[in-house]
């Protein structure tokens, strides 16, 4: 009974996987463009790379891409059409315009600011050894008597535990 049930299950599932389409991926142009778009199933991968079988997001997107590629549209218009239909969220990186530029600039701006700060810091802080030694306070040398007492206290306290 179990075995029979499994067979039926397998059959059903095989049929389901037949119904899905990864055929658009056979087209290298679809694969290339699909790599620039983000699958919306939550996998964070590109439309080309989404590994989910029967993905509810990648499969229709691939079919859309194939249709446009076969209609002879160029890359620019395909991407523009995809953004129009699905929003900017379809792109895998923020567009380099307006507020979104901030996304691109900030990491480099931060690194640059860090470098500038470091430069200023090094210029200000670095000074010859002689001057530094002058500025250093006189150090007191530990009293051996004091150390003995401290050891004693530590030992006594250790017994507590």
């Amino acid at each position, binding site marked *: 009974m179990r075995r029979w049930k499994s067979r039926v299950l397998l059959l059903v599932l095989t049929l389901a996987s037949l119904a899905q389409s990864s055929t658009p*991926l*056979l087209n290298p142009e679809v694969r290339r463009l699909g790599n620039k778009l983000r699958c919306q199933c939550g996998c964070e991968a590109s439309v080309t790379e989404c590994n989910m*079988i029967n993905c509810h997001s990648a499969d229709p997107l691939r079919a859309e891409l194939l249709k446009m590629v076969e209609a002879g549209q160029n890359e620019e218009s395909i991407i523009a059409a995809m953004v129009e239909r699905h929003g900017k969220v*379809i792109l895998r990186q923020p567009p380099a315009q307006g507020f979104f530029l901030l996304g691109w600039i900030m990491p480099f701006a931060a690194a640059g600011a860090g470098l500038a700060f470091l430069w200023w810091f090094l210029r200000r802080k670095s000074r010859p050894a002689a001057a530094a030694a002058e500025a250093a306070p006189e150090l007191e*040398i530990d009293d051996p008597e004091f150390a003995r007492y401290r050891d004693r206290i530590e030992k006594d306290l250790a017994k507590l535990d």
Partner: protein
Amino acid sequence: MENLGALAILLAFCLSVYAIFGSVIGAWKKRPFLVVSARRAVYGMWAMLTLASGLLVYGLMTADMRLSYVASHVNHAMPTLYKFAAWWGGQEGSLLLWSWLLATYAVIVLVSTRGRFREMMPWVITTLMVTQCFFLILNAFVEPPFKVLAVGKGIVAVEDGRGLNPLLQYWAMAIHPPMLYLGYVGFAVPFAFALGSLITRQPGEAWIHETRRWTLVTWLFQSTGILLGAGWAYAVLGWGGYWGWDPVENASLLPWITATAFLHSVMMQEKKGMMKIWNMVLIAATFFLCIFGTFLTRSGIVSSVHAFGVSAIGKYFVTFIALGLAATIWLILDRLDYLKSEAHLESVVSRESAFLFNNLILLASCFAVLWGTLFPVVTEAVMGEKISVGAPFFNRVNVPIGLFLLFLTGVGPLIAWRRSSVESLKKAFLWPSAGGLLTIALLAALGVHHVYALISFGLCVFVTWTVAQEFWKGAAAISARTKQNMVAAMIELTHRNTRRYGGYLVHMGVVIMFIGFTGAAFNKDTTVEVGIGQSFQLAGYDLKVREIRDGDNPNYAWQHAVVDVTVKGQHVATLEPEKRVYKASRQPTSEVAIRRRLNEDLYLNFASMSQDSPDKAVMQAYVFPLVSWIWIGFWVLFFGTLVCLVPPKTKLAYARTQVVGVVTKHATVEK
């Protein structure tokens, strides 16, 4: 059973609260017995959490379908290993694992510091227990693992559970989360020591000496966890990527970066008493980034494959992070005098400034990753428009940063402390630079024109050369004196200063990993529809589908292709990629077949049967050059870190640090 488990968690919560108050009041009012009782509360809490975890694992192993957690993460047909791994397969269980690990770390800390750090320990316990208490609140009240399935007032059991997510039923995935957690949780310990020493104004660098090993071991766990995740993604996800810049992956990378920065800059504090504030900041950042990572994974604030879905626990995390950060910042600001630097930079060209650069660049990459991860949240808040920030962004931003870091890996260790002369720099860098440039020229002549790849390979040679030169020079000196052969001399050299030479080995591991990463510039792939007996070609490989089989077992139904691989007419391998459909979850997965070689991997994914002609299979084939070097590099890094942990043969004395310790102590006494 479920009652006992829930009770154990509640008791653990009470004990953690007691431990906090016991430590604080005991330390404040100078009542040693109260402190001792707080320590014992920690042991008790650990016992309670162990009991609760044991009960949950027992429930999972025996597939007790009355428990809602078990029913959603286990099914009868699942292999035992994965039933056990279901402990961390879901929100409630993994939070319990977090708590249990933290409790275990706390116990290890208590046992290993018995009788030492009298003054500081209560505060270390307090810090650990506040964190523990926070997680126990989640365990006990927000995400209880021992919820039962009930209809009305009667407890019911379902017939079979949903099983663990099939993608997670893979060996590396069974150990990847605990490794990462060991890393995440472990960073709480150095942080606790840092706060403890800050609160009690501990003299000298006691907390650093005590926690260096902790940090290193924790860092190793974190590295292992990240690499296991990469290995899993590569072998399971079906498109051959090992790093997708997913928010949760980024979350595990962030504390790793700050911890790496800390491990470097801490040397400045140990050796020269500098950068004390900075190190405090770094260790605190690492700890809070760990908590933040846990928060990202669990709150559903950003969408991710790894996330446990939307949950109400986000606000608890935000509160905890906000309060914790505020307290830490206040403490650091309040005790700036204690964190005063004892030495000054003497030259811009010195090891000290190399460390500063290293830290800056690490932090810059940390910021870039954090910024990219959160930018979608920012734009949605500001513009009201959703965008996504994916792999292309992170690669573009981080590749240059990574290459610069690789460069510093070679430069830093060769610059002398305090100041370096132009003459000595010339001597140290002439040959390595020549080697690197020659490599670039040679590869360019051979037809490699990818700019980043050329730079990366050139830098790899440069760094390898500098490291080899260091080993060679040291070993030659020893062998001249002791008449040992070079190999024995190198081992002797490493043993004398394990930190330094272990560190070099870690750097070598990083270099080897970079070789692997660089291979990605030359990936090739194809997708084809082929019938049985037909063949297709990719990058010199000839792949012929011999047959397609199917069958099933209680856990899943499968279908797999047998593909013969030939190169120039020579049969080199038979690959059998498989497609599975897990019965409990009805989720289909791909099991890719990989032929791993040092020069390149041949990677075959059986995508599906064809839509148009049902007797044809859709195959995706990839060639990934050099990818194996990533895993080899990891093992070198692993080994190098272990070498760092071996106590050195010759004790390194930092006399300066000792003396300074006394000054501070006198200062406290005079108060």
